Every structure is written in structure tokens, then in C-alpha cells.
């Protein structure tokens, strides 16, 4: 009985190897919660799954809530968000993406420019 159970669980887990899952934010540049000296030209987000470009985007806003991004472009598992020239301050990145298997995820984080 235990061997059959293990076999069933293994089949279920291994049988799903071709499936895709939710797209989680793997890492970002600037790094989540970090402070950078030089203003970045682009915020780049790396995800754990491929993204649906039409339904994946991000916005960058300054501490006053004004948008400082210039749109976003998804390329595979990466979301590129070019930004305007950023003066020293705190910026918030809001992202919403759809992975290719249609699971939606979202999140937000801050980074700081300057000391």
C-alpha cells in the first residue's frame, strides 16, 4: 500500500513537469528594498516563468505618486521598465504579470536613489 501511494504521488509530481506555474518575482535590478547611488535607466524584473507580454506590465512612481516609467516590455521571463532620469528619492515599483499558463500574480517594492 505505501509503495502504491508513493508511486501515485511520484507520477503526479513528475507528470506535471511540463506544466507552468505562477510567475514569481525572482529578483530585480535595482534589488528589492535596496539603495543605489547612481540612478538606473531601467528597472528590470526577472520572473520564475515566461510572461504573456500583452498582460504583463509595471509602473514606477516617485514618493509623490507621479509616474516616472516610460512603459514596460515583457521579453520571455523578464520585464523591462525604462525610467526617466531619477533624482534622489524613494521609488515604488508596482508589477502585475500573467504567466503563459494564465496565472496572474502581482507585487510591489521600493528602492532608493542616492544616500
Amino acid at each position, binding site marked *: 500500500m505505501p509503495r502504491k501511494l508513493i508511486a501515485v504521488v511520484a507520477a503526479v509530481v513528475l507528470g506535471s513537469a511540463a506544466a507552468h*506555474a505562477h510567475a514569481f518575482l525572482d529578483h530585480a535590478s535595482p534589488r*528589492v528594498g535596496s539603495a543605489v547611488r547612481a540612478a538606473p535607466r531601467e528597472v528590470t524584473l526577472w520572473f520564475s516563468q515566461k510572461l504573456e507580454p500583452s498582460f504583463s506590465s509595471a509602473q514606477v512612481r516617485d514618493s509623490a505618486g507621479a509616474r516616472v516609467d516610460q512603459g514596460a516590455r515583457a521579453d520571455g521571463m523578464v520585464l523591462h521598465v525604462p525610467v526617466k532620469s531619477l533624482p534622489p528619492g524613494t521609488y515604488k515599483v508596482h508589477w502585475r504579470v500573467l504567466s503563459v499558463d494564465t496565472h496572474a500574480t502581482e507585487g*510591489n517594492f521600493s528602492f532608493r536613489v542616492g544616500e
Partner: protein
Amino acid sequence: MFSRIICAALPGLALALMPLQAEAHCFVGARFLPATLTVDDPCVADEMSLPTVLFSSANPSGRENDVAGDFSKRITENFGITVASTWTFVRPPANADTLGTSASGFMNLTTAFQYQVFKDAPHEFAWLMGVVVEWGSTGAAGVGASPWSVITPTMNIGKGFGDLPDDFGVIRAFAVTAQAGYQIPTTSFDLVQGAAVPQNMVYGGSLQFSMPYLKSNIIDLGLPDFINHLIPIVEAQFSTPVANNEGNPFITTGTINPGVIWVGDYFQVGIEAIIPINRASGTNVGAIAQLHLYLDDMFPTTIGRPLLGSAPAPTKPFGD
């Protein structure tokens, strides 16, 4: 003529080809609430726990070892059913004044009917209502399965603290869940035991700290990948007799379960200690472990989606 038909059909074709947006296991905004081992999470989902293994002294008849499984299926986007079954092995305590030997068998089959009442993404809040039915006489009497059924209207909520201002720092990685139910047995008197069958308040919750949330939404500390998938958690569950308890003590029983859950893309693994809150709740520390599968991620186009209805079409992020 043909081109006019094509032009007329294009919007429908585009709609048909548009990917549908799946809301799956317990995501609420930026927050992921894992399937908890002791109390239920506040979301309907397509998922399966197989197995859940428990070693506990919480059974008054002696030490108890369980192997359990449950299968949750969304019927519609917001309505789901869970079927759960537990095989149990009970060993009387060494100093028990009993002549009986160890007993094993299935406990009563349990079914939960649950409805997702509300999800508030910006505030990471989820609210679930349900009815849990333990079906009488579906288990083995020798391990304590009752011949009567127990109906338990239940409410579950979950709340993440990610909506706090950035100044709160790592506190924003915390989340809580809570569960409260009222057990209504279908009989009021146990003729075999000669005792009243009480109605109980069953309640509990969890306090969890999400390392994935910390890394993705607050601060990326550059920790090892394994650590970034952990959710340290403390769960608690209690039962208090509140009615029809003549002749029985009005003692609250329960356990506090500290542990950790590792969250992957397709499954999670959790392990917790089981600490009784008083002698009536058990005499030793136990343990529970669980392998939990996210069927919606594993099989997104088949058993991982609702049986009826279609998922809402995705919207452009931020209304772009």
C-alpha cells in the same frame, strides 16, 4: 462577402484566443497564503494533500498516528468541495487500565463545501464561508469514529500586512489566518457511552512570516534560495464545549503547532510540532508533516481549473 464574415468574426475569434486569467490557490494581491496543516486556509482551490502524517498524544484513548489525504476541487471559480479521509492507529497508554490492544482503521469521511465570499487584493484580505460535514458511520467504531454525523458551519479569514506603510519594514511580511466553526452533532446523546454529545466551538488560526514575500516585496537580502522559499508559522487550534454538555467538564482542549512550510512552484512541504495546551489535550509533544500539491499549477488546463464556468478574461495591468 467572405472578407466581411471574417471581419465580423475577428472580435469573437480574438476573444476566444485570449488567455483566461486563472485565480488559483491562495493568492490575494501580492500575498500568497500557503495551505496550512492544522487549520484551513481562506481560499477555494484545486489542490491535494497526500499524505498528511501525524504523530500525536491528543487522542484521550492513547497515542495516535494518522495518515490522511484530502482533495479539493473548485466547482466554479468561487465554490469548491474538499473530501478528506484519515487512517488512524491508536495505541492505549502504557499505564492505561485497559485490556484492549491497539486499534486501527479509517475515521469518518469528511466533506467541506466552501464559498469564496470576498478577496481584497490591495489589503491582502480573503474571506471564506463553508460547511464541513463529518459523515457518521463511515469510519471504524474501534478508533472512535462516531455513528452520528457532525455538521460544522465554518468561517475562515486571512490577512497579510503588506498594505502597511513601508516604514513598518519586515513586519509587512507577516500574515494571519483565522478559523471559527460551530460543531452540531446530529444526535444529542450517546447511548453507548451514556453521555451527552456536546456542541463545540472549534477555532484557531495561524501567524506566518513569509520569506518569499520579504524577498519579493520588502527587501532582497540575498539569502540562499532554499531560505527564500520558507514560511515559518505557528498554528493553533482549540475546541470548547458550549452546549449540551451535561455531565462533561467544560474544558477547552487544543494544541499550538510551531513549524515551517517550504513553498515551491508545484507543491509545498510542511512540518510542525504539536504541543498540547493542557493535559486534557495530550500528554506529549507530537508532530505533523504534509506534502501538498498545487493541482492548478500542475494541471492548469485539466483538473486544475473549475469544473463549471470559465475564468474571467485577464485585464490589462493598470488599465493600460
